[in-house]
């Protein structure tokens, strides 16, 4: 990718690579935070986090399995909320995030 040939961007890439766990944890926390702590839905936020996930997939060459594992977490969150709150806003947000990560995982799996 041409963008990473730039001096600054390749430096940023190195930093990102060194902090893989932190970046992935950040994404996970962002998604979970969006589900539980932010009311209302915003496409900028949703697609921002999703874009970050896609960039991470490209940088870290993440396998689809990891994305499906995260889908499992989202499913469990959705189920948990479904039991206690029914089809509440939180349940629905978890379901939408499941849809988005599932779609990302499928595309990733197709390319593998």
């Amino acid at each position: 990718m041409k963008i990473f040939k730039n001096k600054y961007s390749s430096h940023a890439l190195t930093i990102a690579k060194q902090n893989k766990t932190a970046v992935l944890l950040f994404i996970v926390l962002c998604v979970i935070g969006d589900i539980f702590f932010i009311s209302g839905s915003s496409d900028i936020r949703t697609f921002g986090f999703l874009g970050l996930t896609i960039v991470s997939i490209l940088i870290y060459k993440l396998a689809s399995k990891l994305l499906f594992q995260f889908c499992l977490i989202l499913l469990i969150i959705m189920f948990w909320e479904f039991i206690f709150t029914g089809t509440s806003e939180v349940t629905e947000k978890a379901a939408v995030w499941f849809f988005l990560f599932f779609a990302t995982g499928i595309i990733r799996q197709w390319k593998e």
Partner: protein
Amino acid sequence: MKITKYTVLVGIISFILFVIPFFWFKPGEMDLGGDSSRLYFYDPIAYLKNYAFYGVSPSGFGQENIGYFMVPFLLLLSFFKFLIGSPTTLIALFNGINVSIAFLACYAIVKELIDTKEKKLINAFEFSAIIAGLFYVFSQLAINSWDKALYTHNQFFLNPLMFLLLLRYFKNSKFFYLLIFLILTFIFSPNFSFAAAPSFFAFYPVSIAFLILYRIYILGKKIIWKDALIAVCLFLLLQAFHIIPQLVSLFSPGSVLNTTVFSDAGKFDRGLSYFISIAPNIKVSLSIMNLQQMTQLHFIDYLFIIFPLIITFGFMYNKNKTLTLAGVFFLIVLFFATANITNIGFEIYKKLFDIPGFSMFRNFFGQWGYALLFFSTILFGQALYVVLMKIKERYRYLLCAILLLLLFVNAFPFINGFLVNKVIWQSNNIHVFMKMDPQYEKLLRYVRTLPADGKILIFPLTDPGYQIVSGANGGAYQGPSTISYLTGKQDFSGIQELGMFQNIFLDLVKKKDYEKINQLLGQLNIKYVFYNADPLVYEKGFPSFPYIDARKSLPKTQKEYREFISKLSLRQLTEIDKKYFVYEVGDTYYTQLFFPDNKAQYYANEISNWSVPLSFNQPGDQTVFEASQVPPVADTSFVELSKNNIFRNVLKNPDPPVYLHNAFAKTEPYSLLYKPSVIKEYITLQRHKDSFNYIDQRMFLSAKLLYALELWGQDMPLGYEKYNINEISRTLLATDDQRTLEWELSHANNSWESFLSRYVRNFTESIDYIENSSEDKKWKEQQKFLIYAYILNHKPRFINTIEGFGQSNEKGIVLEKVINKIFETLIARLDLPSLKESQNEYSIPASNTTTQARSLYMNRNDYKQFSPENFTLTIGEKELFPDSVQDEESWIKYDTSGIDLSKEAALEIITKKPKDLMEKADFISISPFTNNVKEATSLEWRNGLFWKTKEWQPSSYYVLSFEYINNSTPFSLRFYEEDAVSNTKDTKILFIDHLNSKVWTKYQAVIRSDKDADAAFVQIGGDTVESPASALKIKNISLVYIPQPNIVLKEDNTAPSDIHTPTISFIKINSTKYKITVTNSHGPFYLVFNQLFNSRWKLFAASNSLRENGNGFDKHFLETFNEKPLFESSHHFVNGNENAWYIDPKELGNKTSYSFILEMTTQRYFYIGLIISVTVFIGLLFYSIYRLFRHEK
């Protein structure tokens, strides 16, 4: 084929599934009813003859109704019925086929899709396919749609079966599979018709796309385009018999289908707005778990999480691209079935409604439901295989056992028939399964013997055209009329089927005007009345639906019904089991299906109230033309005088506000397209700046902005001058030079201020436009009252929207105050003149011709209220008096001698002595502890002053006026009305006004009473229960009756045409074809055909072939193919819904006797299509048999 233990297992499961529906029914029971009636299971031949084979509806006024697509399926049912005999067994057989084939097809698909090279563990391979098959038939989405299933429900087994055939073709490239696919599409053509378009387009395009990609990317093969092209052509030819007539109807302007697909009303009002209203209730989480939307959840539903969990686990360990591809398509279908996947996803979905025909997906979650179930199944089956491969053998069996147990427990209410034999909605515990009463069958046989002429009215009348028939087992049929579908006799079973005569009929029933009811029945070509006296079909079994509206006017019990029928001029023809009665309408009232008329009446305006022409007519003298339908010769013309005076424009309770714009908004304020739409709005206004409809355009935009706020206002912020009421109000109401388009665009376009600013500007600019106009004072007053009407209409809608935010919502509290301030200021700026009785005038238009004498009539019912001591009619200076007041006439003629009615003039209603209901107003002070005022119990809260009138007349106009002053505490005026029709005398609030003024202020409100009104109450009190208006002063209070009588100008032709009444007889060949014989014809006349107008009814010269009455197949169906239609240019729309041809014997060579064939020409397209489709079907059938034998060899 090798038979393994799994083959035997699958065979046993299929057999069990096939047998299950046979245990649902006791001997003779059937699950009939619902929108599609399902009577085709009871008597498929009758259904074919009376409904499917002919393009005219057997019920109501006989509108065009294309049900041809049912023909092959009905023939198949008839064949099985012939073999089996019992409709109960026939229903069970088709249900059994549905379930077992669906299972087998899903099982086979999953096996085909799992890569066979990898099937290391045969039990995992077989179990995953079996469980997937059971998942398809036993999951929640599958089991909840079996009660009174529509004919399109065959998609349940057709979807997987057709997919399997296509999959086999795409895998093996054997055209034989396509041939079988095509043959099945013909047999089950209801599933490939326009009626099944939503389910067809939800499943087949997605499935075919999946299979194409599967072949290219998974199998690595090319698509054989030649095969695809041949298959598409053959499909179209096989479906030609219903597609051709549907296409003709689709592209005929004004047809129901054309309006639904292409009009904005169809696309947006019925499509998009419905979609937007139900979309928030559809939950993605439920669809992911394959649960049904909008139903109550049970414990077992929570366990369905196991299915998405297995799918996700399957993907984690998946190495097969087929599963990945299936995943893509599952997500596509999930998106369409739920719509609520991100805001942008929802916006894209909404944009799809711009595509003509997409509005068929307005009920998207149901229409995509089966496609979602299918793709979930194939995804689950493959994923389960991956999971089973990964786990140890003992866990494998455990998992399979859990899944089977879960599916079985979930489907238990389906297996035992509980979900099929539901209680009929809103009935008194009456179930769907019914056994046909032999006495009712006797009645049906009797009705079949009645003559072809004459429609049937069914009592008790329902609301929507449903009929209730109780079964011999205590169950009941609730669905479209059994009389029309099983006997072919045209009938009216619901008040809605009476169309524009519905209100007139109900009104006459309420007034107990039996003579007029007899006349109306006769004029509607109703010759027979069928009365079902069984209390179980009325008050005992169905206390609510489907009689909710009908019961308001019609008798409420069977006892009252008997009494009602006894008052009508009916002759009893038969009585069966003291339950079923057939009566005949007296000949004096009856009008034939075809009748000649030599007089035409013309109404210059569109007729809004058909009781006007009906009351002027006599039977057989009723050819009424209206508006643009000008008759060749008008013997009498009528002009209903326009009552468009200010009293009607400023009603406090308009219902419905037809003269106001009901605008629609579809671009969300958050959308990128929103700003361009605001600019477009600005440009449009600039273009209309000097045009006559500038105010109209402004009001339209204001309605559009209000609608947008109703839709999205809850989420819209209050932007800049946050929560400062005065600042917001001041800015919004500022003079124009301070606010420009740039001001509005510079603000956040999704804020309330931005919307309100533009909203207010529409009003202020309109007011300025009126003030600066050079038009006269009267025009200015009218325009101001029109704007006032918008304000009255919009304010409660704003308040409703804001109240929807919640009581303690800070934004809502601020906005309510801002809105009140805005409207207060706008009303003040309007500077309306006081309403005066003198403003009650009618305009008489100038006559086009001076040769016709005009006379003036007032409706007798209105005249009763129009007491001459209180009111007079004047034209210019001259006072008018009734010419004669004879009791038998519906209209009272006024003496207009000495007045030139041919010129434009104003007819004024002068109030000599206002009829003030509050003349002796005796207000009672009430408090929460008041017990002596009975009506006080129905008030919102008890405080202030209370007054009641019993003189309140239905459908009348009143002006309430008073002057008031209150020092600080605002007060409320509440106006209530009591309904006289319902048993409980419900009190409803007509309007509330919150008033506040520190100086003496005049208040006026125009109120229209309801058609069922009996009494009215006024309550003047504190704004809330805690704040009594003790400092309130009121003077000069009055509630004045404003007469609004129906006044008609009648113009009689000075040279009436000669009287020529020929004799007409006819033979009904079938419901789309009649042979009419005219004798004794000596001059022009109107041939009136008492069926719903359709330009495709055409007259042809008749051949000499002998014809008989009946509904059988017409052997001479080709006789008019090369004939030219006669009198096509003189085919008119008359009597509001009927056909008439102006027949001039000169064009027939001055013959005195002649015959016509009248034919609904859509039927010809069906015949042509049927010949094509049947030929192709037989060809394909033989070719398939040939291929089958060749293959075996």
